[in-house]
C-alpha cells in the first residue's frame, strides 16, 4: 500500500528520536550534561533584632520575587532569624515593608517560613545544604534537590572577612560553606548553584569554594561595607539593603518569560549607587553568563522540548489530546519556553516529559521535521485525499499500461 509507504519516514524518525533520547540519558553520568530538572531556592536571613529589620525585608523580597517567577513554595526554604512583623516596635503590626512607600506588604498571605527564630543556626543551615537531617525533620524543611537541580542560595546578614554572622552568636565561615557545597556536589544534590550574598565583605565568603557548577555573587568586595538603601522614617528603621534593592529593581522589570541573562543582571549593578563593588565569581561555572537566563535560578523556567510525538505513533486520539495541552506558540522550535503557572511546572518537572536540548543534531533535525509535519493540517483529510486520488492514479496507470 502506498499509504504504508508514505508513513515509513515517520516511523524511522520516531525510531531516531528514541535513539537520541537513549544517548542523552546514557550520557547523564556527568552532571554537566544532566538535564535541568527543577529549581530550588534557599533564602536565609541570619540576623535578629529590630534594628536588622532590613535583612528580613531583603529575604522576604527575594522570596516574593522567586515565587513570582515560578518557584513553588515547597521548593523554597525560607529561614528568618527573627520576627519583625510581630515585633512590638513595629508600627504596622504583622506587616513588613521593603520600601517607605508601603505599597507592598511582604508579609501578606502565603508566606511559608520553614526555619524561624532560633532555628536559624549554622548547624541547621549546613544540614539543609548537605541533607543530613535528623529523622524527625519533615520533608517541607528539607532540600530535596537532585542532580538536575538549579539552586539559588541567598543569604543576608552581618558579615566580615570570610564569615557571616548567624543570630548574633555564631558564624558561618567560608570554609564551612565551601565544605557544604562540596558535599552537595559529591552527593549530586545540584547541577548548578548560584550563591548570592548581601553582607559586608561578601566576596570573602566565596574564597574557599572549589566545586564546579557554582556561581557566586556578593554585594561587596573585601574591605568594603554593604549599605542600606533607605530609611523608612515612619517605621523608624532602614528597610532594604542597596544590593538587594537594585537586584529587586532588576527583577521587577521581568516576568517569567523574559530572556534576560545573568550577565545583564550582573552588569546592572552600579558601584556608585551600590556604594560597594558587586563581585561575582565565575571560574567554577561552565556556561557563558550571556547565555544563561536569570530565570534558570530565580524562576523555575526550563528549556523544554515536547516529546509528545511518541503518543502519535500509537494513536491519533492520544496525539490530539496532547496537542490541545500544548501552548499555542509551540511551533517555533529552538529556544521556546512555555510555562503558565506552577501547576504546569509540576508536570514539566518530570524528567521524562521534558528534556533539555543538549545540541544533539538528530533531535534538532527531528524538531524541524516535526514542525513541518504539523503544518500539514489534518492527517485524516490527507489520508482521505490520498485514497480518493489513488483511484484516478490507478486508473491512469492501468490505462497507460494497456
Amino acid at each position: 500500500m502506498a499509504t504504508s509507504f508514505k508513513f515509513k519516514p515517520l516511523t524511522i524518525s520516531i525510531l531516531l528520536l528514541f535513539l537520541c533520547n537513549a544517548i542523552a540519558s546514557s550520557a547523564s553520568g556527568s552532571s554537566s550534561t544532566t538535564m535541568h530538572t527543577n529549581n530550588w531556592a534557599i533564602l536565609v536571613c541570619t540576623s535578629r533584632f529590630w534594628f536588622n529589620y532590613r535583612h528580613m525585608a531583603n529575604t522576604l523580597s527575594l522570596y516574593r520575587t522567586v515565587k513570582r517567577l515560578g518557584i513553588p513554595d515547597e521548593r523554597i526554604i525560607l529561614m528568618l532569624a527573627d520576627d519583625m512583623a510581630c515585633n512590638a516596635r513595629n508600627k504596622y503590626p504583622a506587616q513588613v515593608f521593603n520600601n517607605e512607600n508601603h505599597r507592598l506588604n511582604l508579609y501578606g498571605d502565603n508566606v511559608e517560613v520553614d526555619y524561624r527564630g532560633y532555628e536559624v543556626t549554622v548547624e541547621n543551615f549546613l544540614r539543609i545544604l548537605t541533607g543530613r537531617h535528623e529523622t524527625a525533620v519533615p520533608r517541607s524543611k528539607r532540600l530535596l534537590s537532585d542532580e538536575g537541580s538549579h539552586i539559588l542560595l541567598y543569604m543576608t546578614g552581618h558579615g566580615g572577612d570570610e564569615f557571616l554572622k548567624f543570630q548574633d552568636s555564631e558564624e558561618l565561615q567560608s570554609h564551612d560553606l565551601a565544605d557544604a557545597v562540596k558535599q552537595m556536589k559529591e552527593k549530586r544534590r545540584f547541577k548548578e548553584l548560584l550563591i548570592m550574598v548581601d553582607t559586608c565583605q561578601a566576596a570573602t565568603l566565596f574564597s574557599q569554594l572549589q566545586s564546579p557548577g557554582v556561581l557566586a555573587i556578593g554585594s561587596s568586595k573585601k574591605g568594603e561595607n554593604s549599605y542600606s538603601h533607605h530609611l523608612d522614617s515612619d517605621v523608624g528603621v532602614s528597610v532594604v539593603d542597596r544590593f538587594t534593592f537594585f537586584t529587586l529593581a532588576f527583577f521587577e522589570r521581568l516576568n517569567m518569560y523574559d530572556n534576560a541573562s545573568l550577565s545583564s543582571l550582573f552588569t546592572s549593578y552600579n558601584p556608585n549607587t551600590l556604594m560597594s563593588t558587586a563581585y561575582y565569581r565565575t571560574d567554577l561555572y561552565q556556561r557563558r553568563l550571556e547565555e544563561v537566563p536569570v530565570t534558570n535560578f530565580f524562576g523555575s523556567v526550563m528549556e523544554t522540548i515536547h516529546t509528545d510525538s511518541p503518543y502519535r505513533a500509537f494513536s491519533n486520539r492520544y496525539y490530539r489530546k496532547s496537542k490541545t495541552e500544548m501552548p499555542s506558540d509551540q511551533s517555533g522550535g529552538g529556544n521556546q519556553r512555555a510555562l503558565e503557572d506552577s501547576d504546569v511546572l509540576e508536570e514539566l518537572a518530570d524528567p521524562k516529559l521534558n528534556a533539555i536540548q543538549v545540541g544533539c543534531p538528530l533531535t534538532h533535525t527531528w524538531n524541524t521535521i516535526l514542525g513541518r509535519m504539523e503544518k500539514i493540517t489534518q492527517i485524516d483529510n490527507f489520508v482521505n485525499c490520498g485514497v480518493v486520488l489513488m483511484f484516478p492514479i490507478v486508473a491512469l496507470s492501468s490505462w497507460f499500461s494497456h
Partner: protein
Amino acid sequence: MTEVSAVVKPKPRPIIRIGLFLISHSLFVSIVCCIAGVLALLLLPVLAKNTYISENALMPGSASAMLSTDDASDGHVFVNKIMSISSMSINSGIEIPEMIAKHIIESGGEVNYHKFQPLSDSFHPLQFFVGPDAGMVQDNYSSTSYGVNTVGIVRAPRGDGKEAIIIVTPYNSVKPTTSEALSLGVAYSVFTLLSRVSWLAKDIIWLAADSRHGEHAAVAAWLRDYYTLSSGDLEHEVTSVKRDGVSNGFRRAGTMAAALVIKVADSSTGFEKDGLKIYAEASNGQMPNLDLINIVNYLAVHGQGLQVRVEKIWSLLDSWWLYSLGELQELIGKVAKSLNPGWKFGIPASDYVEGCTTLASSLYNQALGIPTGPHGAFRDYQVDAITLEFSPRFSSSQRVLFLLHVGRLVEGVIRSVNNLLEKFHQSFFLYLMTSPSRFVSVGTYMIAFALLIAPLPLVAAALFSDASKSKSPGESIPTSPAWNWLYTAKTVLIVHLWGAIVTIIPYFLRQFPDSSPLISLLTWIASSAVLLFFTRAASSSLPFSCASQLQTSEWTLLKAVTVAAAFIGLCLMSVINYATAEIGALLLVPMCLMAVPLRIDATAKTAKTVARGACNVLLVFVGFPPAAFLLSKGALSSFDGVRLDDFWNWIESLREWNSATYIYICMVHLPCWVLCIHILLHRR
C-alpha cells in the same frame, strides 16, 4: 676578667634593675612624673574624643517625630489649667494631682497616687557599695505634710511588660511655678501621644513628683517603694477599685530602662535658640551610660536645633592663664602639623578654654559625689537617668512651639530607648565631659592620675632604703630598720584611727541642732585637735613604745610610711570615685613628697632649703581641708563672700548625701595632712 666577674656576681633581672634605677633617682623621677601628671590633666580637653552612638539598636532620629501641633496645644491647655489652679487662693496641694490623674485617665493611662514622707536623713556612707537599704519602709503618715506623687502608666500594646521608661517632672503641688507647669505640659503632651502609638515595646511611666520636700526626696521615695513590696501593697491590690479609676495601690511596670527628668529653667537663655542643659552626675561621681547623653545631644542638635550645654565653671572661662595655655597648645599643634601633616592635634584656644571649664565642672561635680538633680536617685538603682533642663527663649505666645520642640525631643529619646534590647551597656560609664559632644574616657584620664601617684611608692622605697643604710655609728641597741618601720607604722595607724573618729564627730554634733554652722565647725575642729592630742599621749605612754630611742632616721621612715599610706588611700579612692582621687592627689602628692622637717631647713640656711621650707608651709596650709575649700571658692568667685561656715555647710551636705568624698577627706586626706605637719615639726 669581665667574664669572671660576671659569673661571680650575676646581674639581677632587668625589671629589678629598672626598679632600682628609678628608686635611686626618685627625686628626679617624682618631679618629672608630677609635672607630667599635671600636664596630662591639662591636656585632657585636647585628648577628648567626639561622642558617637555606640549601641546599634538605638537608632536615634531614624523615625520621624509624631508629636503634632495638636498635641502641643493640648499640652498648652494643660499648662493653663495648672496655672489657673495654682492662682486659686485655697490650695491644699491635692487639686493638681487630681487634675493630672483625670487627664491621664482620659488619655487612656493607668494612674495611682503615691503618698510619701521625706526620710529623716541618716548617714549611710557605705550605701555606695550595698545599694539603698530597702528594709526600712515606714508606714506612719502621722504628719499631714506628706507629698503626693502622681504616677501615670501607659502599657505597651504589644510589649511584654517587662521594661519601662520613666519620665519625671518635679513640681511643687501647692504652688507650681510657670516653668514647672511647662515641664508638666511637655510630659503631658508626650504622654498622650504615647498612649496612642502602636510602636511601644516598653511601658511608659510618668512620675509627676511632688517637690514640696525636695525633688530628689520625692523621686527617691517613689523609687524606694517601687523596689520594695510594702505591707499595704497587697491589701490595696484587692481594694484598689476606687472612684474614677484612680488606684491607691502601687502600680509598677517592669525594670526601668532609662529615666528622663524634664525641667524647665526659670530664666531664659539669652541665645538665639532654645537651650538645653544636661545634668548627669549621680551620687559618688557615677554617670549614666554615655549613649543616653549621646542620643539626647544628637536629637537636640540635629532634630530640634536646640543649643545643648553641659555645666561649666564660668569664672574660669575668662582666666588669662587658661587662655594662654590654650594658645600654647594651639601653636604646638600648628608646628607639629607643619612638620608632618599627618599629626593632627591641637584645638583652637577658645575651644580649649571651653573644654577646660567644662572638664573642671565635670570633675568637680563627680568629685563632690552629690547628684546634680533628681536623676541621681535612679542611679542608686543602676538605672540610667539624666536631667534635661530646657531654657526657653520665648515670649509666652510661643509656648506651643516650645512645647512642640521639647515634646518631639522627648518623644525621639523615648523612641530610641524603646528600640533598646538590653540595658544600656555598649558605651562608657566612666568618663568626663568636655563639651556635650566630646568626652574623655577612663583609659585616657587615668593616665594623669597614674602619673601623679607613680612617685609615691618610689619615694617610699627610696626613703626606706635610705633609712636602713644611714645608721648612726654610735647606735647601741641592735634594732633593725624593719622594726623601726613598724613603730612608725603604728604612729601612722593611730593617726588614721583618729581620722575615723573625726569622721563620726559631726554625727554627734547633729544632736545639737540649734548651734550655728560656725560654732559646729569650730567645735568639730577643737574636739578633733583635743582627740589628736590625747591619742598621741596615749600611744606614747604605751609600754612597747620606743619613742625615746628613735633614731635620726625616724622622720624619713615616718615619711616613707606616710607616703605609702597616702598611696594606698588614693588608689582605693580612685576605684570608688576617680574625680575625688584626682583632685585629692593634686593636693596630697606634692605635700607628702615635699615634707622635710623645718628644723633641718632652718639649720642649713641655704636658699634652696629656705625655699623648700616656705613651700612646705604653703603646701600644708593649702592642704588643710577648710583652707583648700575656701581658697578655691574665693579663687573661683570672689573672696568677699567667703565665710568659714560655708565649709561646714559643704561638709554637712557631703555627709547628708552619703558621699564617699567625705570619708576620703576625713580618713585619708586629714590623717596624711596631720602626719605631714608631724614631719615638718619633727625635732631632729
